[in-house]
């Protein structure tokens, strides 16, 4: 950004990015590209209401399941409509893992290549329900209440204790969770829609279910949909360059060939004239929405000082995985709830 000929188009993917880079982005309100959108759900605004960046595709995450294995274990997907259903199926599969030849959950490693699935994505269920109680967040809250920590614990415990890998072996990682799922060694895999291409190679019927965690009314939950893929246009380049950039963006999302290539690479695009997606998990997401389920948006994007915050959570979860005591869970809560406030204060220091 500091070059004499800086990029005109760049990505501001979350609220932290908005905070850091908003001065470098023009207000996209009412521009040609904004008019192409079919939803406002994936756009990012700063405090003053300036449209800093706009989503160009979105993704979803949840629990990827292998219906064939679940049937092989004598269950059906219909049993899994809430946490109790998920728990019953997962615990039964784990108990009979030796006999069945596969286990319930694939490994939930805590190394950097995997921990984000739990410190970022899974954590979203806590944030989302807090956000919903608060009537939606428009900016990063300065603190959390931790009201849904028990629900996070429910699902987290279920995942680590009914898995191919013992919880004490997760700290350094080295297990290939994707491969475990692909080869049919595990029936559940916590991840997102970007895995569809890889997973569907071998697990044709792979489907995605929401984070069921014991919240009231969760039978109506949908998948976690959102994006960190949002375009911003550099405010420090000439107007002609800005206009050319916007024209280019419009072309990318409306031209049949261009948008087809984008959809193939990126999943699904929230634009009126873009082609439709072929991603099974995203279509699952759309189906949940069509059935009247609520979309769990990506409140995770608000995590303040995201790297530091998640690193602390990894450390606390490591200790908890090694010894699932109440004292260790209290440390997880401290890192999760108080860590948020601390990192919020640090991120917003003058």
């Amino acid at each position, binding site marked *: 950004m500091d070059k004499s000929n800086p990029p005109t188009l760049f990505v501001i993917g979350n609220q932290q990015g908005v905070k850091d880079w908003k001065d470098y982005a023009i207000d996209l309100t009412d521009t040609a590209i904004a008019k192409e959108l079919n939803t406002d759900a994936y756009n990012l605004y700063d405090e003053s209401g300036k449209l800093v960046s706009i989503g160009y595709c979105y993704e979803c995450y949840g629990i990827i399941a292998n219906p064939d294995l679940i049937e092989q274990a004598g269950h059906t997907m219909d049993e899994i409509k809430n946490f109790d259903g998920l728990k019953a199926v997962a615990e039964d599969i784990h108990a009979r893992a030796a006999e069945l030849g596969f286990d319930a959950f694939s490994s939930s490693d805590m190394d950097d290549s995997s921990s984000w699935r739990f410190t970022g994505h899974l954590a979203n269920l806590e944030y989302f329900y807090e956000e919903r109680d608060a009537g939606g967040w428009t900016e990063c809250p300065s603190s959390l209440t931790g009201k849904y920590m028990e629900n996070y614990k429910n699902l987290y415990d279920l995942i680590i204790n009914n898995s191919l890998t013992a919880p*004490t072996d997760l700290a350094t990682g080295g297990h290939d969770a994707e491969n475990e799922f692909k080869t049919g060694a595990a029936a559940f895999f916590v991840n997102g829609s970007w895995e569809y291409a890889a997973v569907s190679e071998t697990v044709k019927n792979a489907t995605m279910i929401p984070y069921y965690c014991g919240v009231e009314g969760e039978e109506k939950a949908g998948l976690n949909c959102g994006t960190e893929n949002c375009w911003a246009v550099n405010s420090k380049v000439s107007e002609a360059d800005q206009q050319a950039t916007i024209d280019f963006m419009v072309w990318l999302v409306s031209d049949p060939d261009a948008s087809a290539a984008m959809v193939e690479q990126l999943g699904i695009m929230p634009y009126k004239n873009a082609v439709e997606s072929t991603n099974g998990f995203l279509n699952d997401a759309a189906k949940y929405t069509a059935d009247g389920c609520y979309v769990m948006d990506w409140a995770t994007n608000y995590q303040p000082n995201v790297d*530091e915050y998640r690193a602390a959570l990894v*450390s606390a979860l490591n200790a908890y995985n090694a010894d699932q005591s109440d004292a260790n869970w209290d440390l997880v809560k401290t890192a999760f709830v*108080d860590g948020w406030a601390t990192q919020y204060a640090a991120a917003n220091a003058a």
Partner: protein
Amino acid sequence: MQSILETNEALAAEAAEAPSAEATVRESLEAKAKAARERDLKGYKPPRRSLFKNPLRRWGWLFLGPVVAAFIIGFVWPFIQGIYLSFCSFRTTSDAQLLPAKGENLFGNYIKAVTDPSFLHSFWYTALFAIVSLIMINVLAFTVAYALTQGVKGSNLFRTVFFMPNLIGGIVLGYIWSMIFDGILSYYGTSILMETKFGFWGLIILMCWQQIGYMMIIYIAGLQAVPEDMMEAAKIDGATKTQTLFRVVIPNVMPSITICTFLSLTNGFKLFDQNLALTGGLPFIIQSDGSTIKTTEMLALNIYNTFYGSNVAAQGTAQAKAVLFFILVAALGLIQLAYTRKREVQQ
């Protein structure tokens, strides 16, 4: 025939004129010398033909130029800018704004740096690590070098093998060793990321493994340079092996000890890659307010995490930490050099 005659005549004429020509030259030389002497008396010196006479002194800068330019571009200028930035608040370096311009204390970044508990923790942790690794690496490297200069069979092979770990990059080593340690620790249901002491000793083992071979090479060179006659004299005088080692060999390898302790001390303080790859600072102490102290985080990693992990305001703080870090490493290195230099024996 005619032409030959003419030539002869010309030659004769020339010969007749020759004495006069010689005289002219001599006269003119004398006149020049005289004039020169007169000029010298007036304090005038003739221009020196320096381009040919003393080219290196005159034109040396031309040859130094590329290196000097590279040094200025790659080191001096960023260094000065780094110091400047440590007094600034900035997102991109060209946007830097001095702190007083924002109504803050000029030394605000430095105050934040020295009052940051994680920085202080990493300082003491690094100091402890540097001292322990300094002692371990040098004692072991010297021992290996001493053993391999006693005429053991196959010592060249051993030297090569011991040196090899030094050729592997720090990040790779960190990940490989984390697997090795975890392979062992998983038998006990734990991991290198679970306890500070595992992380500390793990890093010590890693660094010893990597550095001993390098220091060993330096010590071997030093040991081979110990004069034979001195060793022989010690033998004749009836010195025991221990006495020879401590009274003759070690004083004579002091230059090697100087360079090795300097290298291992500064290496210990500057360590980054291995630290990042092996533990990355884990485990953390989660404080009651939700802030963390990364128990195995060393200074360089702390600076990196401050710069990239926090908000924009912290980048200035990280820069201030980096300046403090430079002063610390430079000062320690110089003190240590001065101290060990004193003990070197002049041969």
